[in-house]
């Protein structure tokens, strides 16, 4: 059988038929060689990056413990120094102060700061061992940094979307707009769409397709809203502008309207 194959594949028919034999065991030998070599490469890679993985976990654990110790020290030290009382004595505006006490905030910030530092050091160690353990010119650290940035964008976008939606909802309800909930939902989804586009752009996913799709979608929404407001509520907008112009022409404290103490139904809340 092998002889027949050899004759079939003989290229030059005018050559004297020389018997060509192929050893089938060599195919299996080459295949097994290839497999062994690839297995060897992968295992070598794993062995090469194992120290990096170990360094990552050790760095994370060490800095977590350091962070906990630092946080406890700061908490005790600031409580002893009455940091909260000193701060609130001179603090008048309470609009943007944190919900927890300043001492707690400093302690937590120090803990998370140490944890983040440990994470960065661990990833850097892992990245170094990964880069030396492979011939591929891929570095893991920049991509992880982008991923962390994308997560932060997602969190910030969600918070901003919820805050703006609630602000619009309360404002619209107090303005007695019947479609307050829809308005709030629209604002929320607009912000979320913008956030999603920013994340995809940050991760370099989709490229121009994402940019174009977002531009068309967002532009379409804004154009639709502008047409709806401009065409659908022309009278309301013009009345609102007229009343605003009348109010802005008064430059002193307004006295109460005449006759309101006698026969008027006007409520005065202040």
């Amino acid at each position, binding site marked *: 059988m092998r002889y027949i194959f050899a004759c079939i594949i003989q290229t030059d028919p005018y050559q004297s038929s020389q018997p060509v034999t192929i050893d089938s065991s060599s195919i299996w030998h080459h295949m097994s060689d290839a497999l062994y070599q690839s297995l060897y490469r992968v295992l070598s890679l794993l062995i090469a990056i194992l120290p990096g993985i170990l360094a990552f976990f050790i760095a994370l654990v060490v800095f977590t413990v350091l962070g906990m110790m630092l946080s406890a020290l700061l908490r005790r030290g600031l409580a002893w120094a009455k940091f909260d009382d000193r701060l609130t004595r001179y603090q008048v505006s309470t609009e943007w102060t944190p919900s927890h006490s300043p001492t707690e905030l400093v302690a937590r910030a120090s803990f998370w700061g140490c944890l983040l530092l440990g994470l960065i050091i661990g990833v850097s160690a892992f990245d170094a061992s990964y880069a030396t353990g492979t011939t591929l010119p891929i570095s893991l650290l920049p991509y992880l940094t982008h991923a962390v940035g994308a997560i932060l964008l997602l969190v910030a976008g969600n918070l901003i979307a919820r805050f703006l939606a609630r602000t619009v909802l*309360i404002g619209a309800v107090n303005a007695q707009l019947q479609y307050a909930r829809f308005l709030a939902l629209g604002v929320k989804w607009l912000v979320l769409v913008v956030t999603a586009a920013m994340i995809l752009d940050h991760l370099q996913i989709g490229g121009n397709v994402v940019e174009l799709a977002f531009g068309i979608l967002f532009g379409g929404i804004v154009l639709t809203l502008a047409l709806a407001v401009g065409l659908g509520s022309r009278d309301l907008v013009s009345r609102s502008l007229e009343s605003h112009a009348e109010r802005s022409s008064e430059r002193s404290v307004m006295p109460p309207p005449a006759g309101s*103490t006698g026969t008027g139904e006007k409520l005065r*809340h202040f």
Partner: protein
Amino acid sequence: MATANPISDVTPPPVPSGVELLVLAASMPPDQLETVLSRLSEVLPTDRLLIAAPDLPAPEAYPALRMIASPATKSSWTLTASDYVNAAELARKNHAHAILMLGPESSSLSATALQHLARTVSTTGTDLANPLYQLSPNAGLVNSAILYPLTRALFAQRVRFPLAIDHALSLRMAERLGAVGQRYSGLNQGDAIIWPVNEAAFTGYAIQEVEVGPRVIPQPIEFDLNAILALVAGSLFADIDAKAAFWQRARTLPSARTPAQQQRPSETAADIAPMLDSFRLAYTNLREIWSLVLPPNSLLGLKRLSTTDATTFRMPDNLWARIVFDFLLAYRLRTINRGHLLGALTPLYLAWVASHINITASGTDPERHIEEVAAAFEADKPYLVSRWRWPDRFNP
């Protein structure tokens, strides 16, 4: 604007050592200021009187009065931190024994009222004389709904108008309020509202309420109920938060005064339909936000109210008291953003106003209803104290 003539043939009265009464008048039209000056001249001894105002008339018009220019402050519908800072500085500079602060539209106060205010501080040893205005039933509703009940329940003061725009102060009271106002002015918040009654109660100074009769109350220029309610309520909540250690202790409320027979102008009942519509719309849309602040009992009460007919719409006094206390707690705990919290209070306040109008339209005396509301706040004070000390972040 009138300016003092540097070369005048009218000899000003000799400057006494110290001034018995410093009158600090707010910026007002010249005719109103002249009315005030005339009335002060009638009832108070002019030799120990000092008038301070941003825009003074010519000295020849009032040769017996000593007048000085006060720093001009931003025109406001209420007294602000800057006003108290100016009052304290002028009082200190001129060694005044008492200060009479008059807000805009004070020409509507009678001469007798001005005299009573001034004499209360200068003769009885009172540190803060707060006016008791005679207003129409449909005026001062925020004061009736929130400011007076909270001040009475927490600071144990029967002062009907805690955010009055006229005061008579002793020198030490003026210095105390000036120091408080200085903190705000230093942070470029000269328009902040200060609560003199709370400060006086906190410091242990004597407070007395003086009946002054009718007065024209100026209104804010840009009247946005949502914004102004948030400003006033937020300021009061912040002040209560800062003085928590004081009001949590049990205090005795002064005995009720016997009010003089006041002829209140009768008014036709206001239309409550827009307020009820606003409340029902808010119940539909803001229920989730209210559920973060209010307990299930209060939400159930609001649910019942949202289905109540306009003619029988009545908000129970204890429900309103609990709502205000829960919003105060949420303000302190920052359960939600404070701007959102105070914005969500507006529809509930309008519901109370609608209920109050219904109750007074049925024949109940408005003052009697307001006193019942204040009594409900007093009765529920233990609820506030217990939740303040052990904040439970309930999640119904």
